[in-house]
């Protein structure tokens, strides 16, 4: 007897789960009413959605969280690479799956508004959000770690609002674009897939949107925080009203003495198109890039673990890196991702002008 087909445990079935039919998750039974958040949570969960998009490789989750902000299918979530995909799917708490339209983003607030084609949905009214005090208890709803699929309800963590403060955080080497007020909580919201989830009080009233995975700029520890809806409301309303939000990120920190690709000994293929993929054209001999092992035709995919969209965005991101900082480039070569760490030489060092000849022994290097 062949064992394999008898089991239900193949990951291949996971995909089928996405096609699940509608079914509200019923949770019954009784418990000590005095201590249970169950009734409130049961009211909030139908407003939480699971979002699936780009990612799923290199340790980057392809899912995140969001919540409904209108009966006709507007969804508020965090702006991230997950949404940077031709197909973004939203799965409701009842298991219904929708293809989402990206209505708009605010890069500074790192929020995105999606729209799904549905009616009569339960939702949070952004106009009616609560303003909590420090020390008050909160509930954090999200699909962290992608635990829930299909009609399974999002996860809930409980905690308290530790402090309201200004965000001082970084992602990799970058300062975050948003540096406004945030609520720091003691629930562990800083987990893959939690961004875009909802923070509520114990009455189930919306307080804030769970933030992306960031580290505290001062002590380098992971930060559990959420952005108050008060900070997001105006931008969301403008997007819903069809106003275009600025896409460029004028607030982001610029390096004083920025790193340039040429300092590393690299040239990108120049097609004259801003949105051209950042393929490496030339690697100069004896340069940091040559020493690290980069080659002609490598496609730069990540800069310091941040997805690189195109040549233009790569150059723009480079402007935020000081020339004495080491960077990590992830490239696609022959269908495989390879990671390299590079550092530019001190500024007075002359650099070679000769392109490195492509070694004939290339294949033996691996």
């Amino acid at each position, binding site marked *: 007897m*062949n064992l394999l087909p*008898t089991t239900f445990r193949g990951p291949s079935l996971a995909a089928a789960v996405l096609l699940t039919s509608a079914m509200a998750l019923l949770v019954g039974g009784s418990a000590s009413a005095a201590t249970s*958040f169950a009734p409130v949570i*049961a009211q909030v969960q139908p407003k939480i959605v699971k979002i699936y998009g780009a990612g799923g490789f290199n340790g980057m989750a392809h899912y995140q969280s969001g919540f409904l902000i209108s009966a006709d299918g507007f969804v508020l979530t965090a702006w991230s690479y997950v949404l940077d995909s031709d197909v973004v799917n939203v799965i409701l708490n009842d298991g219904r799956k929708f293809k989402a339209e990206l209505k708009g983003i605010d890069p500074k607030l790192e929020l995105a508004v999606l729209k799904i084609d549905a009616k009569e949905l339960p939702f949070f009214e952004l106009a009616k959000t609560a303003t909590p005090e420090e020390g008050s208890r909160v509930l954090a709803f999200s699909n*962290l770690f992608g635990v829930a699929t299909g009609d399974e309800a999002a996860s809930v963590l409980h905690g308290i609002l530790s402090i309201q403060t200004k965000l001082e955080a970084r992602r990799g080497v970058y300062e975050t674009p948003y540096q406004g007020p945030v609520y720091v909580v003691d*629930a562990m919201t800083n987990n893959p897939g939690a961004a875009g989830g909802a923070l509520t009080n114990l009455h189930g009233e919306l307080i804030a949107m769970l933030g992306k995975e960031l580290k505290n700029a001062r002590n380098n520890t992971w930060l559990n925080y959420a952005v108050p809806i008060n900070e997001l409301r105006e931008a969301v309303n403008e997007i819903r009203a069809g106003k275009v939000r600025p896409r460029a990120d004028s607030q982001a920190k610029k390096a004083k003495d920025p790193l340039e690709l040429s300092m590393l000994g690299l040239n990108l293929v120049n097609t004259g198109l801003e949105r051209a993929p950042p393929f490496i054209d030339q690697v100069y001999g004896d340069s940091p890039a040559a020493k690290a092992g980069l080659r002609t035709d490598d496609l730069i995919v990540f800069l310091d673990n941040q997805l690189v969209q195109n040549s233009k965005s790569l150059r723009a991101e480079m402007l935020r890196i000081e020339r004495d900082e080491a960077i990590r480039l992830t490239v696609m070569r022959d269908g495989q991702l390879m990671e390299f760490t590079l550092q530019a030489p001190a500024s007075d060092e002359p650099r070679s002008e000769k392109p490195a000849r492509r070694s004939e022994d290339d294949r033996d290097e691996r």
Partner: protein
Amino acid sequence: MTARRQSAAFVGWLLSLAALLAATPPMYADDVDSSVLQAEAERIAAVKKATPAVVCIFVQGGMGGGSGVVISPDGYALSNFHVTKPAGTGMKCGMADGKVYDAVIVGLDPTGDVAMIKLLGRDDFPVAELADSDAMRVGDSCFAMGNPFLLATDFHPTLSYGIVSGVHRYQYPAGTLLEYSDCLQVDAAINPGNSGGPLFNAQGQLIGINGRGSFEKRGRVNVGVGYAISINQIKNFLGYLKSGRIVDHATLGARVGTSDEGRVVVTDIIEDSDAYRRGLRYDDEIISFASRPIRTTNTLKNLLGIFPKDWRVPLSYRHQGKQYDVLVRLAGVHREAELIALTNEPEEGEEPPAPEEPKEQPAPQPGESPRPKLPLPLPLPGPKGKPKKSKLPSPHKKASLPQIVKDHFEAKTGYANYFFNKLNQARLAKAVAGHGEFGRVSGTWTLSGEAADHSPVSIRLGAKEATCELPVGLTKIDVTQSLDAVLNPPASGGMLAGLHMWKKLLVGGSGKFDQAYYLGTAPVPMFDQLADVLIVTQGAVEARFYLDPHSGLLLAVELFPDDNVDPCEIYFGDYRTEAGRKVPYRMEVRHGDQLFGIFALKKFEMAENEGT
């Protein structure tokens, strides 16, 4: 006022102050809502109730440890397979009373990551009360107790409080083992060393066994996402675990997928499977399984994971527009040899669960405050230089087992501890003997009565042959030959062979068969509880005897002439005492989906020896 009177007054004041302090709650009580104080009191009571049964497990020889919980006064306790695996046979268990007990492995469920151990030396251990874990709702309070980071050096368990974050969760296996089906997700801190320990509800009742967490960038410490195996799943496995075996989980023998219309349909099915024999075919819709409606493939996958191999579970499906309700016999996930090999192989699955101890600490990143050094491995070096209170063994890997553990252990392939299988075999032998003294009636048995349509029935079970006379004619088998040769009467699936095996068990006991072992407990039709199951083999045929765990009476026998064919099922009822022997006057015979016959006996004669 004299000095004496002054001092008397002072003492009086002191006493009244002490009385006040003792009698009244702390000063802030006036400001605190009474519901808060009540909740606090309830929480304290729940923890107090739960604590005594919690076990802190220390693997001999400083190989780590974990947690556990005692569930019966004679010391049976639950933990994780991945906790007891490094220990093998014996381990040391500390309890909140500060005492250390020797414990021995009993049974293993490597797929479900559950281990049963038995604490030795008492028959009045404090026990945890088992609750219904399906009653837990997201948001209900819960708390984990145990031995995180092996901190419980005084054996008093650590407590972490939280809420249920998710129910009916599914966590993929690491390799083919350690699958967490239909589990509870909690935000109570579950850390390395909590593995195997109890998860309690707000009333201090046991709802699960903690064993796993989602970890990522912060190393192997809690990030608010812990998982507990539901106690309802473990309840299904308790009898199996007590059998001392290495037990397996179940599959249906079919793959399913979700159709475009959102129905769960069969996309592949094995023709050898019981599901196929029950009529399930490609493209049939699964309506319900184990009495729960199936609307997603995940629900079915989750439910399958909570059942042991060989159980029969209700399945409803729709085939060509018509609904069928059947009992399906579940196949195993693993082959037996495969399971043994997987159980023995060294660890390091794809995603090891919250381990009994962190193997190494990730180096602190720049700017990140270094984590405190963990007091690992045991025995703890500690500031005092040596372990306190405990009788921990010396840190030699091959510490010899204590005598009490040796006395409760017997190695055998396929078993975690054959000692406990023999224990249960002996228990069932006593139950069989409780039917009466059958040793003296080894002669021909003559059973006569009538079928449901009042037609006469006569069955003779002799030493050389067994015969059955029905209106359709007389059939017989030669019981000196292999019993799978002739499955008479036709369409019964082997009723005469089954009755012959049944008589042989009553007359001679299980020792008369080629092989006998205790399976555990399983459901049996027409009986509302789980029954004890004794399996015997004779040549190529296997018989499964189901016994009422309370009365010890034989409820049924199933005769399997071969693998992958339907057995003959004989259900016994209407027990009457015949010359001091309890015998059934009602027999219902089934085969496959068909009722072969219901026989109401009028005479039950047992001859003392052949020929009389």
